[in-house]
C-alpha cells in the first residue's frame, strides 16, 4: 500500500473526528474555539522545522526559517490569546 493511500485514510478519519467534535458547541465558545483551532493549525511549524533543519539547500533553509517564524507566531500567539479569553470564563462560586 502506498504512502498516499495511508495519508488519505488518516486525512479522512481525522476530518470525521473534527466534524463530530464541533457539531454541538454552544455559541459562547465559538470565538475561543476558533482561536484555539487556529493555534492548532500552527502545527505546520513541524513542517517548517523539517525544512529549516535540512542542509540540502541554504535557500530552502531560509524559507524554512521564515516559515518557523510565521508558524511560531501563530502557535504561541494563538494559544496565549485563547488562554486569556478562557481565563475569564468563571463559574459563579
Amino acid at each position: 500500500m502506498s504512502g498516499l493511500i495511508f495519508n488519505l485514510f488518516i486525512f479522512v478519519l481525522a476530518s470525521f473526528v473534527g466534524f463530530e467534535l464541533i457539531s454541538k458547541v454552544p455559541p459562547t465558545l465559538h470565538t475561543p474555539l476558533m482561536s484555539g483551532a487556529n493555534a492548532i493549525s500552527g502545527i505546520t511549524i513541524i513542517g517548517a522545522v523539517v525544512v529549516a533543519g535540512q542542509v540540502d539547500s541554504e535557500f530552502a533553509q531560509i524559507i524554512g526559517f521564515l516559515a518557523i517564524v510565521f508558524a511560531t507566531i501563530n502557535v504561541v500567539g494563538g494559544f496565549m490569546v485563547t488562554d486569556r479569553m478562557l481565563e475569564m470564563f468563571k463559574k459563579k462560586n
Partner: protein
Amino acid sequence: MLPDIIQLIYLVATGIFIVGIKRLGSPATARSGNQLAALGMFIGIVITLFDQQIISFEYIIGGIVLGSAIGAFAAKKVEMTSMPEMVAIFNGFGGGASALVAWGEFTRVADPNVLSGQDLVTMGLSILIGSITFTGSFIAFGKLKGFISGNPLTFPGQNFFNAILTIGSLGLVGWLAFDPTNMLVFWILFGIALLLGILTVLPIGGADMPVVISLLNSYSGLAASMAGFVINNNLLIISGALVGAAGLILTNIMCQAMNRSLGNVLFGAFGGDNGGGDGGPAADTDKTVRETTAQDVALQCAYADKVVITPGYGLAVAQAQHVLKEVVDKLEKKGVEVKYGIHPVAGRMPGHMNVLLAEADVPYDQLYDMEQINPEFKSTDVVLIIGANDVVNPAAKTTEGSPIYGMPILDVDEAKRTIVFKRSLSPGFAGIDNALFYEETNQMFFGDAKDSLQALSQALNDV
C-alpha cells in the same frame, strides 16, 4: 530514536489534540482543553527535532525564539475587544507558513523532476491554499481594524473574475505536476494565489469578517494538512484535517445563527460598515418614541421582580461591560432577579457578548442562551436592551423580504417593559429600522451606553 517511536509519540500527540479540542467545547473544561492542545503541540515539536533529516539547528532555534517573542508580545498586548483581528492575523501567519513549507520543500530538491506527481500536486495545493489564507487573513484584519474600508468593495463581474482565477490556479497546480521545472508556472501560481486571497475577501462586508476568519481558519488547517502530505508527516496531516473540518463546521454554525448561507456571506456583498450608527437610512419620523431618563429607569428596575439584560454590539463599542456589571450588582443587592439574555449573533463575533461580560467578571451561569431566555420574557418586568438592535428587531418575524427575515430573535416585546440604550434611532448592522422602538411598552434611553449606564448606576444609589 527510531522513526517508529517518533510515530508512536505522534499518535499520542494526536490523541491529546483530539481530547483538547473536545474539551474546548464546554465552558467548564475549555481552558484545560486549550492547554492540552498546547501540550500536544509542544510534544509534537520536540519529538520532530529527533527526526534524522534534521541536522542544522541554528535556523530552527532562531526562528522559534523570534516567532515566540512576536506572538507572545502580540497576545499580551491585544485588548479583549480586538480578539477577532488578532485571530485573523495569527491565522494568516499560519497559512503563510504552510505555503512556505511547500515552497521550501520544492526548493530543497535540486531537481524537481524527482518528485512524484502526487507530491507535486499536494505541494501546489499547499501553496495555493496557504497563500489565499495569508493574504485573505490580512485583508480581514485590515477591514476589522479599519485600515481598509469595511464596505464591500466590489466591481462588476467580480464573482465571475474570481471564479476564473480559482479555476486557473487549480489548472496551474496540475500543470506544475507535469512540468515541475518550469519556474514561471510556479511563480504565476504563487502570485495568483496571493491575489485570490485579496480579491475574495475585499467584496465581503466588514461585519461578516468573523465568518470569513473562521473559514480562513479552516483553510489554514487544510493548508497544514497538505503540507503534511508534502513532507509525509502524520501529525501534520491529522491535526490539519481536524482543524480544517472543525473550522468548516464552525463557519456553518455561525452562518446558521445569522440565518444566512455561507454563499450569501461570501458572495452577497452584504453588511456594509462595521460599526452601527454612523449613517444608514434615517429613521421613520412619523412614529413617535418615548424617551426616558436615568432616574426613571432606576425606579422601574429597582421595583421590578425580574430584569433581563440583552446586550448587543453597542455594549462593545461603548466598552460599558464593567459599568453594566456595577448596575446589575446594585440591582441584585436590592433583591431584583437579574439575568442576561444572549443572542447567538449579538455583537460582531460569535460569543462576543460572553467574552465581553466575562471580562467584567459576570459568571457564565448568569448568561442565558436565546432558547433559555425566550420563555422567560413573559414573566419579566423590565428588559434593558443595551446597544442591541437587530437581535431584538421584530422585522425578523414579520417583514418578509427584510434582510434578517427568518432569523430567530429575542422576544423582548413579551416583557412588560423594554428600555433601549442607544445613541440615536439609526439602524444596526443589517441597516433596517426597528419597529420595537415605537412600541407602547418601549422607552428609549438615548446616549452612549457607558454614559447612560453610569448615570443609571448613580441614580440607583438614590432609590
